[in-house]
């Protein structure tokens, strides 16, 4: 059974906008990070879908890169969250606004 590529793209778009909503609307940084991961994986899904559809391996290679970057980003993001939590004793993204000059 072959699934049309447009279905994958639609799923990818849905995932992406869930991620966007998560980042913009939720104040918990852990949720925001998870939403970012969701957006990245939505992009990954689109890349893999197109790579399959057009039989071009470049998409697969990009996915590996994106996964690597996502891992690094998650590590750094969590480290920042921990650092902020230590200082502020709660986790709220808007709390970081105090850093601005």
């Amino acid at each position: 059974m072959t699934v049309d590529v447009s279905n994958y793209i639609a799923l990818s778009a849905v995932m992406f906008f869930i991620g966007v909503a998560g980042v913009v609307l939720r104040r918990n940084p852990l949720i925001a990070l998870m939403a970012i991961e969701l957006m990245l994986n939505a992009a990954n899904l689109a890349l893999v879908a197109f790579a399959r559809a057009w039989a071009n391996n470049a998409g697969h290679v990009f996915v590996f890169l994106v996964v690597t970057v996502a891992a690094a980003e998650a590590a750094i993001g969590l480290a920042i969250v921990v650092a902020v939590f230590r200082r502020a004793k709660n986790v709220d993204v808007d709390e970081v606004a105090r850093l601005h000059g």
Partner: protein
Amino acid sequence: MSVLDILWLLPLASAVLIWALGPQLRRTAGALGTAAVLASFVAALTLFSAATTAPGLHETLGTWVPGFTFGLQLDPLSLLWTLIITGVGGLIHLYSIGYMWSDRAIARFFAYMNFFVFAMLTLVLSDNVVGLLVGWGLVGLASYFLIGFWFYKPSAVAAAKKAFVINVVGDVGIMFAVFALYASTASISFADIFAKAGALPPGILLLVCIGLFIGAAAKSAQVPLHTWLPDAMEGPTPVSALIHAATMVTAGVYLVARFAPLYSLTPSGQELVAVIGAITMVLGAVLGIAQWDIKRILAYSTMSQIGYMILGVGVGAYQAGVLHFFTHAFFKAQLFLTAGLIIHALHDEQDVRKMGGLRERLPFAFWAMLIGTLAIIGFPYSSGFYSKDAVIYGALEHGHPWLYVAGVLTAGITAYYMFRMIFLVFFGPYRGDVPDEALAIDPRPVVPHAEDHGSHAPAWLMQVPVAVLMVPTIVAGYVAIAHDGSSPWTRFFGALFPVGEVAAGRALPISEVGSTLLVLVLVACGILVAYARYGAPAVQLAAVDRLRRETVTMPPALRHAFWFDDLIDAAIVHPAQALGMAIARFVDPHVIDAAVRDLVWLAGALGVLFRKLQTGLVRGYALTIVIGAAAFIAYFATLGGRP
């Protein structure tokens, strides 16, 4: 490496070596520098026959970009200058060992001198206009170094700056000529330019000739760019002899002679050169009358004699003009070196009012000075006799009777001011205050920084070069004596110079012999007037009072050298200073500083404005990114997607 390369680079190598090892070499630097220049001279001699057989010696050094091929060439004209630069230059180097013996910067002096020789060789050996311009600039630099050699004297520093600035005016003139030549011939080499010279539009040709002559006028102290030369006498006397008499100041003559194929096509350009040369010739001689400093007398006489040369090459009598360069290099170098002997013997006294009666006490200097003077005034059978007559009569032959008259008159004035100097320096009672026993040709410490006061250079170091120069001072003109219609001089140049329009068949108002006699009569008059005013025994007894009175009653025009310095000050220097002050007072604070201040204010204002956007709310930023990305996608999906 060819012999040509070696003779060109040897002085540079020596200069660098002396520069690097100066403190260790000390007086050995003099021997090294002299040896390098004399070796170049010998190398040039070995190339004599190769250079004089047409088309001469040529060597390509390298190509920069297409059209810019640099090389060296040695044709008769280059060879003549090379031989004078290295030959007379070598003798002056030898003399300098004695003259600079007690100066603790003797190594620096020889580094500069060798650098000058290299620069001058670059100028005359280049086969292209750019190389010539480089050499032209470098000799100006060397001249600046050497005029300001005693840099603790403010007057020397001022003179050096003045010389450099005026010479840069000339450099710019040549630069524009080079631009015009390259733009119209697409080449910088002399051979290409001269081959295409006939096809150049007359306007361009005239512009090029004027540009080149501005350079020649600045370097060769032609009116109105001459004011630096008398001031340049602040340098050590060997420098005056080498750079400001024998070689560098004659570069203008070389330039006009080198570009003879262009000048011969531009009668109005030639006219300009000849007239300026004649004005300089007369002016220099007139001002030579009014000087009290022995070196300034010689400086104005140099200016006047270069006027003769420029007149010669300007009217188209190239061989005559260049012949006068050739003989002048010997007798003027000799005169300057002899003046150096006197200055040394009198413990740095240069004022002729404080000399007198030195004939018995400095007999060698007397005879040397007398022979040089006889040559410069054109005494029969001395070298100047042949060259000066050739120039003067050449002006008539090429159809310039007024310039001819000026040349004849100037010959009389020359005799007057030169014998005025002889009488003031060597005859009558001694008017100075140097005791008899201290008076000798005996190099003394010449500068306050002198070291080991007890050590004296051997006197022969300074006498031998003067004695050697006496020979060509007398005989150098004999090359121009014609047998069967051609002299060694004309054979030497062969077909190098274009033959201008000579008045063949046209009746000249005076024959060549008649002209010579006329000049000699005027020269005799000049000597007689000088004798009556300064030489007669009755005059000499009251000389001190007379000279004091003459100093006071000197016409202001002569005392101020016809106000050329004041004129240049009023026309250029003061307006430039006023402009500078105006810029400093108004443009600087109200335009440049104001612009910077306003920019700072603008940056601050923008910062205040945009700071409001920076809330620190991460979700806000994320929303902005989303909106931005959505806008991009919308744009490319709808409008920009289709090309």
